[in-house]
């Protein structure tokens, strides 16, 4: 198996959107290679194509052209079912919004992806909530938590199926700098245990804490 040791490998990936008669080039001939254990920051202006890039790495969208490989999977012609499978087993997602179900407890929210993987993940959920410092909040409802705490629940949930890649699209966008710092510390902690992280951020201070910064401008990537 020739995968050059990369966990994420993209070669001249383009993504076009059509809006009416206009064609938007959200990604242009992008190349990106990520080794296992890297912590990548993706930095760029609003509308520069960061989310589009994350969508493609996360198997949420297909590129218009180019080559994409995630772990051992060549994404190009895989049917939707297998993409779902890759998302379920290989990738965790954290977003600016937390998407917690307000009527489920903290513990239940973290366990939710286990429902779709048909696995009992309760032990793992308790362990992860301990790691993000919410051991005592298991039976709380989301609206009893602060924003920073909710994002920590979301992080625990994203890791419940033991993914090898964590994709975080502006995870600190809704948080103050103190909470943002906490979240990044947490990411660093998980990164040290071998988790590969690709994170979109606006904040240059946060970006400098990552092992590598990728700039994106008008759909073009520059390392």
């Amino acid at each position: 198996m020739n995968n050059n040791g990369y966990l994420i490998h993209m070669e001249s990936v383009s993504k076009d959107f059509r809006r009416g008669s206009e064609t938007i080039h959200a990604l242009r001939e992008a190349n990106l290679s990520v080794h296992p254990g890297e912590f990548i920051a993706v930095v760029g202006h609003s509308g520069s194509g960061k989310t589009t890039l994350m969508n493609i790495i996360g198997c949420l969208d297909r590129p218009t052209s180019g080559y994409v490989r995630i772990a051992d999977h060549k994404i190009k012609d895989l049917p939707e079912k297998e993409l779902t499978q890759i998302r379920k087993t290989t990738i965790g997602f954290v977003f600016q919004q937390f998407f917690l179900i307000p009527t489920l407890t903290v513990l239940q929210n973290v366990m939710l992806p286990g429902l779709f993987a048909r696995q009992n993940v309760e032990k793992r959920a308790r362990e992860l909530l301990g790691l993000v410092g919410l051991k005592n909040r298991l039976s709380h409802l989301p609206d009893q938590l602060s924003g920073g705490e909710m994002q920590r629940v979301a992080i625990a949930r994203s890791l419940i199926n033991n993914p090898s890649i964590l994709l975080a699209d502006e995870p600190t966008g809704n948080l103050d700098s103190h909470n943002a710092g906490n979240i990044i510390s947490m990411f660093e902690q998980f990164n040290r245990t071998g988790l590969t992280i690709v994170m979109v951020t606006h904040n240059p201070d946060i970006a400098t804490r990552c092992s590598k910064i990728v700039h994106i401008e008008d759909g073009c990537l520059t390392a």
Partner: protein
Amino acid sequence: MNFMTVAWSNLRRNPVRSILTGLSLVVSAATLTVVIGLDKGYSSAVNSELVESTGVHMYITKEGCPIEAASVIAQGGLSPLFVEEELVERVQTHPNVDAVLPFKLFTVTVEDGSRTDIFMGVTPEIQRVRPDWQFASGGWFESEYSVILGAEIAQIEGLEIGDVTYSEEFDREFNVSGILERNYGQDDATIFLPLATAQRLVQREGRLSAIALKLTDISLMDQSRNELRAMIPADSNVLGSRELGDGILQFYSSTRVIMFIMVVIAFVISVFGIVNTMLMAVLERRREIAYLKCVGAGKTDILKLITFETFAICVAGSLLGAFIGLAVSPYFGNFMRSLLVAYVPSGSIAQPSLSIALLAFLSCTLIGVVCSLYPAFRASKIVPMEVLRNE
């Protein structure tokens, strides 16, 4: 944690909406229970009243034998055609046969031709088969040679209860045990005898002119006629009585149509209600559902989740509705009675029962779940990428 837990927690997110959706099913199930109960009650009230007030519903005769007495009388004397007495027991076994009257009919014309007497040998069943066959005085045969007289013949002969009358033809005395109310029909001129006596007088033991039947449920008339025909020898025939026109049966079937239109309307309203609210519930959660797809929920997972949500509402709403329907049925029965103009039976119009409630419950639940399929399908089609869409 399972799908039901998640579905249930989703319902609690907007309790007012969940309750309103449930209420539309409560209304449907209650309406269905009430209407089926009314329909059943009304049919059976009308049916039992018709059965009460009408006489013979069918005759079993020999093939080709016009049973109406007029033709027998016209022939003068004794029809050569007869029905075997053993058929009585056979037809009695039919579940829709309420009463069976075997009878022997004959006429006697005096030698100078100046008068013809009509004789009919009957069993006590005649009182069940013929509601208009009522005593004005006296009662049932006291002995083998008792007679019961029609109103007119009693008057012509000047006979009263306890009188003894001599018959030249049979060279025998008969005592009068009963006299009938006038009913302006053939009965008024008929002399009734015990069946066995009548058969013996004309040497026709074991033979009948015909058998008259009364049914339990006249709406099953056609079906019963065919079944009876299969039970008797091929040379015998089952004739419908002229008394029962189709008109009255048709009348109440049109009343039923009106009631079922009510049900259909209730259903259409609740179907739109369910589809609409569930669709809203799905569309406002688009991004969350998209997120679930990000974390590995497949199409069927989402379908299942949304269908479970609706299922819970439907079961609860339908169950409650069915019970409410049972409870309020009697009031609607009284209400219906005040609305009916043409034909109001005297029995209870509403006839709610557990099996009706169960039927209403099951059909409402089923409809509710079917209604949820479209919103659930829409939800399952949401693509995970939507989670990241900028609004």
